[in-house]
């Protein structure tokens, strides 16, 4: 290896003191990781105050709480990745970064590290990032807690997946109360219209984050209208799975599948206006409270009052 004067000079200066965190590549890596608030379900709130004769759209109002639970769960997961935003990488190479290991201040004896790798396409553009947050309780080896894959260059307009290995966090004793017990998958695509988010708690029979076991789906269009699929139980052992479509002003339509073990199923259709006042109910078995005492099938209001949604 040829030894040049410039190398010697560089070595001398390096020895004298040279370093820091000034790195464009660090930015490229960090921008590929979704931020805590970048994956959120946002259901529009009522945009006017009034209440029609059919009562309020409780099913859609419930969506607000469910969205909050989904967002809190996502924030908890992505918050773990925020560790890399406050620290300089421990190692750098052209295609890899690592952060940590750190001692988990909330769980004595546990160490956390983050590994990240990127792949470039032929033109040098970022094609895919893979990252993982791993934890271990010494002397054991590292177990993956979060496995992420991202396609694109910047998380806010790319697509990716997050696999949360709750079984490993449970095994290490670092899970939070209410966390799912089994792995959970998140898929997101922020690159197009609509922007979509899918949070699959289907492998967790008991759900998690206060949510029922379900594959939650959310899509939001640039003009503000969107859809949100979710599930929630009531206190009587019924499980409502809901497919909603809503406008930016909060008017919407929901198709509600009611499952009452062991065999009863009903499919209810409800529409509401901007004030979240119900304008139409179709309940084949007259299960909902507004149809109580009415002959089945129960039809209240007019279907023409339903918002015109794509």
């Amino acid at each position, binding site marked *: 290896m040829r030894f040049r004067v*410039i190398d010697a000079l560089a070595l001398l200066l390096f020895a004298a003191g040279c370093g820091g965190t000034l790195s464009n590549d660090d930015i490229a890596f960090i921008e590929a990781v979704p931020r805590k608030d970048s994956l959120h379900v946002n259901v529009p709130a009522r945009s006017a105050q009034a209440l029609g004769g059919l009562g309020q759209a409780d099913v859609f109002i419930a969506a607000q709480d469910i969205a909050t639970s989904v967002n809190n769960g996502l924030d908890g997961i992505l918050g773990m990745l925020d560790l890399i*935003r406050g620290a300089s990488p421990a190692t750098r190479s052209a295609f890899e970064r690592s952060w940590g290991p750190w001692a988990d201040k909330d769980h004595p004896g546990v160490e956390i590290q983050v590994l990240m790798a990127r792949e470039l396409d032929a033109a040098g553009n970022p094609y895919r990032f893979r990252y993982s947050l791993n934890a271990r309780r010494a002397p054991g080896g590292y177990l993956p807690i979060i496995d992420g894959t991202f396609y694109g260059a910047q998380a806010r307009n790319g697509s990716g997946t997050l696999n949360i290995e709750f079984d490993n966090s449970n095994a290490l004793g670092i899970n939070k109360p209410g966390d799912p017990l089994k792995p959970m998958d998140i898929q997101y695509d922020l690159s197009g219209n609509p922007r979509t988010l899918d949070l699959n708690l289907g492998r967790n029979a008991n759900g998690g984050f206060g949510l029922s076991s379900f594959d939650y789906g959310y899509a939001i269009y640039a003009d503000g209208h969107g859809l949100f699929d979710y599930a929630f139980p009531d206190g009587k052992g019924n499980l409502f799975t809901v497919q909603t479509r809503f406008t930016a002003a909060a008017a919407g339509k929901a198709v509600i599948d009611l499952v009452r073990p062991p065999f009863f199923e009903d499919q209810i259709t409800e529409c509401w206006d901007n004030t979240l006042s119900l304008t139409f109910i179709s309940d084949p078995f007259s299960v909902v409270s507004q149809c109580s005492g009415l002959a089945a099938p129960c039809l209240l209001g007019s279907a023409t009052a339903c918002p015109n949604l794509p």
Partner: protein
Amino acid sequence: MRNPLALAVFAVCFGACFEAGAAERRFALVAGDSQGGQGTRPLRYAERDAKRIYGILTRLGGVREEDARLLTGADADTFRAALKELAARAAIAKAAGDQTLLIVYYSGHAKDGELRLGDSRLSLEELRLVLKDSPVDVRIGLLDSCQSGAIMRGKGARLAPAIDVARSSGTTPHGLVLIASSSADEESQESDDINGSFFTHYLASGLLGDADSSGDGKVTLAEAYAYAYARTVGGTAGSRAGSQHPVFLYDLGGAGDVVLTELRPSSGGLSFGAADEGVYVVLDASRKAVAEVAKARGDSRRISLSPGRYMVKKRLAGSLLVGDVEVAGFWTEVSDAGLTPRPLSEDPQKGASGPRWSLLGSFGYQRFFDQGARNGLFPPAYLGGVELSSRDDLGHGLAWGLDVAVGGGSSTVQLQGLDPIPERFLELGSGVSLWHDVSLSDAVTASLGARLAFLYLARNFPGHSELPNQSFFTMTPGIEALLSYQWNARFAVTARGRVNYLFYNVDKNQSLGYAELAIGVDYAFPGY
């Protein structure tokens, strides 16, 4: 032939001679040219000499600035044109009844009977004839160049310590006087010690007042020549080229001599009392000699100087006396008792006057050569800073300085596939420099040196809270060059360029270079 009686007679009669009756109008053409064309080496002080004489004639010599022309680096045609124009103006003044006087001074190369103004030539014979035929009452030619005595070849040039001034009556002086710094076969010599040619240095010293042997506050042509002759011969006696002998041609009719400078009380200067004796050298703020005073005990001398701070040096057998003086429109007394003894090794003219401290405030622009490095990592920056420097501290012309600078700006990081990311950055730098000053002229100094700096950079990303702040620090060596123009004794305008090396090692190991350009104002602290 020295003729003290004639000098005394002239001194007495002057007031009744040239000044009597008619108004006086003086004109001066002063030229200096360091270049002599092919076969010559550039002179170091020719242009400085010209500026000194120009300053003395316009300040003390009765030449109004509109009647004076200073040519530096001009060619022969320009010289001829200026001389013709001044002669014409003098003729008009003379026609209007004024007594007229024209002084032509030249400092530069001469060879083979010709003045060499760059690549152009002006024969000494032509100059002599032009002066001879100019319609001016008194024409004085002062030539400080090698073999300049050739202008008088065959015309009765005299090698003598003094001009014989004969007294006539009835008419004012008229005619031609030629004074050359050396005879037709001698070299005219320059000296780094006095930062000028011997002849002009002593002529200037004499005109400033040291030649005023009569003590009447007026320096006449005879006094100036006698002084310059004696001091030039004495000053060059030990030189390798041997003694240099100024010569003169005196063809002045009428009532004798001409007063060249007058030491007006309002002009201010230095006064050397009768109690001390010896040779005193007066240095300006840049440690260049502006005058000498050589006096015997019992004589008093006054030299007129522009307002400002000066240093007076007197050499003793094995030591020096040195002191700071200020001239501000009055006569400042200089005495040995007021000077401080110093060893010879601390001769201020040798650059060992102790440190000269100054503070440079500068504003500049920094740019990295590598386009990739400019992308967010090291974007172009504006820097403001100060530098404390000490000149002549480590040796003659050697200076060192400590500087700090702060700067920054805003930029954007452009990364493939990412939207542009705005950034704000801050840069702090501090360095130590060592350089060598070279005087290009009286007012212009060039410097070249090296600098080792510590550089710290930090940046953040407005609107991108997901991105942490970043920083970088390193040592960065480089070279620097400065060009300074001395505005006055205290202030200089400086242009500075630096080229630096920087080793970057975060994303990858990379050798980078960057340049800085800055302008600033340098303030020299009082006290030297």
